[in-house]
């Protein structure tokens, strides 16, 4: 199995295993999860292998079926999507291990179907990341979206309606994207991203191209839940099954951010996006609005998971604003934040899933006294909180570092203010949770005195807590290793021409 085939393997292995899984699940549903894990291990191996190949040799262009581009579809892996591929496959794998108990509890009779859709979703996301063809991206975007619609719908009571709303909005977004690509195709006759990059510069003055870009952007923003197109996200993610939230929340929006970056820089060039178009400042202001709105809306929630979803909306604002600030520090921060936010969101949603597993609910009142009864879970949760607040040495601090530095260099004080405001609001939000889990229910400790027996520890099963701890440890390790990531990977992901 030569490493040259890794780009296709990391998509093909999960895809084929989906079929195998579905058939095997028919016989005995215990076969499902092992197949998922084996497939995803293969994917992780292939994606890291691809990343390391890219680090050594530069961009990989893999032609499917050896058809030459621009007629054939090719997979292009460079530093940016190499990083994202590793993130997607790793998160998929960890969540799969985590999901065992949760799925058994929430969806006992639908295990094979769940895992089939799960692995197809991961396939879709990997495909979006690795493809170098604009139309192929649409197809994979829809594969991911369709599987996500179904996975989200099998949750609690309200999940079905929320998923339906997501269907409507997601389809609008995808169709806008498709329209935009159509506009580009009309003018250039090509769908291959690299080819488009070469053909578009002569056409920068054309209205068709500008409209095409706008359409693609709107489509991607819907998928990314960029304020004000975020309406589908809170309900969809809150009522979904725990394992789905853990998979979808860290990944879907981040992969869409990746798509936005790809379109902005690799298809159109930075010169077009930032100079020919005049509206980059407006987007940064929208990002400020996203951050502030997301933070404020999170403050008024009494449902733990819903609060987290609004925090996700704010985090998307970080990344969008960072990219559109158009300087090296800000874009570094945005790309770093794709990695960091995926990990942080995963940590927090995993905690939510564990809390749902043990207490059967995700309102604030289900969080009482958890520091006593579930110390291991809450310790890992605290690390996630520190990362959200931006406390060193967790990774959240470092992406904030670059984003704020970028805001200072661009002299966009409002964006810097929004970032600081959001950090402080996150501190308030999460310390409210910590307070409920730490202080309540109030017992008089002095009355009991020395004989007071502590409440017994009633932790979640190991298969849920160990992945959570791995993610929490990763938050610190990735944070400490930021320098390596930036100099080896992200530095090369930023296109030339950015100051």
């Amino acid at each position, binding site marked *: 199995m030569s490493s040259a085939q890794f780009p296709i393997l990391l998509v093909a292995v999960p895809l084929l295993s989906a079929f195998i899984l579905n058939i095997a699940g028919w016989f005995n549903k215990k076969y499902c999860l092992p197949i998922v894990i084996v497939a995803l291990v293969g994917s992780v191996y292939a994606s890291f292998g691809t990343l390391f190949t890219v680090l050594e040799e530069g961009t990989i262009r893999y032609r499917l079926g050896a058809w030459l581009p621009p007629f054939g579809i090719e997979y292009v892996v460079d530093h940016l999507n190499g990083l994202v591929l590793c993130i997607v496959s790793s998160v998929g794998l960890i969540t799969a291990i985590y999901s065992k108990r949760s799925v058994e509890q929430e969806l006992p009779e639908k295990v094979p179907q769940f895992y089939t859709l799960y692995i197809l979703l991961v396939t879709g996301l990997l495909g979006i990341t690795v493809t170098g063809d604009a139309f192929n991206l649409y197809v994979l975007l829809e594969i991911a979206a369709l599987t996500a619609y179904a996975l989200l719908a099998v949750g609690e009571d309200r999940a079905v309606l929320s998923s339906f709303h997501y269907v409507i909005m997601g389809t609008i977004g995808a169709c806008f994207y498709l329209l935009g690509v159509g506009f580009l195709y009309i003018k250039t006759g090509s769908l291959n991203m690299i080819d488009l990059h070469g053909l578009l510069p002569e056409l920068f003055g054309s209205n068709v191209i500008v409209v095409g870009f706008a359409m693609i952007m709107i489509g991607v923003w819907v998928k990314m839940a960029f304020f004000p197109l975020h309406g589908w996200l809170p309900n969809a993610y809150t009522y979904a099954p725990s394992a789905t939230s853990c998979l979808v929340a860290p990944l879907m929006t981040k992969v869409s951010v990746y798509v936005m970056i790809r379109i902005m820089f690799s298809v159109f060039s930075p010169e077009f996006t930032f100079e020919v178009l005049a509206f980059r400042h407006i987007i940064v202001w929208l990002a400020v609005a996203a951050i502030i709105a997301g933070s404020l809306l999170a403050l008024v929630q009494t449902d733990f998971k819903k609060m987290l979803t609004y925090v996700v909306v704010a985090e998307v604002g970080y990344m969008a604003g960072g990219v559109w600030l158009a300087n090296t520090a800000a874009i570094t921060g945005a790309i770093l934040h794709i990695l960091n936010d995926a990990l942080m969101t995963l940590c927090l949603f995993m905690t939510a899933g564990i809390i749902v597993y043990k207490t059967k609910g995700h309102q604030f009142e289900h969080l009482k006294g958890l520091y006593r009864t579930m110390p291991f879970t809450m310790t890992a949760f605290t690390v996630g909180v*520190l990362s959200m*607040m*931006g*406390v*060193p*040495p967790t990774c959240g601090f*470092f992406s904030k*570092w670059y984003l*704020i*530095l970028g805001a*200072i*260099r661009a002299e966009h004080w409002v964006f*810097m203010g929004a970032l*600081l405001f959001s*950090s*402080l609001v996150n*501190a308030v939000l999460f*310390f409210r949770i910590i*307070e409920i889990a*730490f*202080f309540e229910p*109030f*017992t*008089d*400790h*002095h009355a*009991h*005195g*020395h004989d*007071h027996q502590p409440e017994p520890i009633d932790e979640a099963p190991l298969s849920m807590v160990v992945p959570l701890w791995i993610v929490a440890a990763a938050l610190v390790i990735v*944070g*400490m*290793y*930021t*320098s390596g990531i*930036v*100099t080896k990977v992200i530095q090369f992901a930023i296109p030339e021409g950015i100051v």
Partner: protein
Amino acid sequence: METITSIKPLLAVLVSLSAVPILVTSNRIPNVREAWTFVAAVVKFLIVVSMLPTVLNGIEIVYTVAEVIPGLAIKFRVDALGMLFALVSSSLWIITSAYSIGYMRGLKEHSQTRYFCYFAVCLSATIGVAFSANLLTLYLFYEILSLATYPLVTHHQDPEARKSGRKYLLYIVGGSIGLALPAMLISYNLAGTLEFAKQGFLPGTASSSLLVVVLIMFIFGFAKAAIMPFHSWLPAAMVAPTPVSALLHAVAVVKVGVFSIVRVLTGVFGTDLLVSFDFGGIIITICCVTILLGSLIALSQDGLKRLLAFSTIAQLSYIVLGIGLLSPKGLTGGMLHIAMHAFGKITLFFCAGAIFVATGKKNISEMIGIGRRMPVTMGAFFIAALSITGVPPCGGFWSKWYLLLGSLEADQMAVVVVLLGSSFLNACYFMPIVYKAFFCKPEDALFENKVQEAPAFCVVPLVITAVISVVFLFFPEPFLKLATMTVSSIMG
């Protein structure tokens, strides 16, 4: 400045951190657990002391842990100023651990393991701040300290603790994320580096108006220094158990705050820059306001710990004031006060805690005649009060003396007035307590004439720190030498 590389700074930080798992596992056997705390404290102190001779010879010890951002690393540098602070903290941790044992057991407190563990983490962070070589490392350990003290402040886990915890976080974390972080990033953007330098790294990078904004952001962002108006968290944090209040709020947390400000003023801005832009006046004004207001409010307090809290607020500003004077003696006085105030204040808090353990009393009005029952405790209180007021025969005299000389050197007569005035106010709020404790009419006394001190574990530490305060008058070394070394390396 010669430097050598040694892993000792990292070890000093990690000692207490590595003790945490041991403390957790010896949860069931309190004596073993306490023994390990002692061992960790002593080892930490020894490591710090082992670096003292090198530093006194003018050699700095550096160690780079990891480069986390291209061009910026988590790095330690042990210089005279850092050594001064680290010595104070590590020595006092040993004493406080002893005191904690007496206090926590005397009151049969819950969750003692958690308490000792987070105490250990706090000390790690404090030493980390002391030995920071650049602003990023300092910020990192500053934040860790803020968060590690939260479970200690809210130890009692009742609604009052929760409220105070909120206030604590609001000021401390709000200040550090909202003000200090952007200030740090702006400085980084201006200078391209965050390494502390002898005359700072900001000279020549920006205009006076931008720099004064950054200066204000730093001073108020490091809210642990309790400079008014960001001081209210300190009286609120007095809900914590007294050993927590003692070490953290009289010595570690607040001293980290002022230490950070001193580092920023000397290592980021540099005294020359402050002189050339005339920032000294701003610093002095802010500090004088805090000193006077703090002392005045202390006069009106009935709760002993609250009174001590406001006294601390005023005393901390002495330290920053010393730097603001921008004269050699002033700087020396300010830095020396870090040490002198630490020993004095911790004695006072120990006494407050001992009184609470022995009698359950928290308010001064309930402590009339207590000297009959607890003469040793109140004797130590008296000595420590003298030290804080700045009167011989206690070490506090030296730091006040240098501050006075420094303000004369800098031609700041107003500061001289403020210093003398606040010393007078200090006497005004301390002496009545002592007087009423010892000399009162027998019928007014609330206590019998029977000596019934707090447990030995409580009384012995406070006697030790009181004695040290006296010893400092005669032997202010090595703190005086470390302070003068720092000043001469800064100002030449």
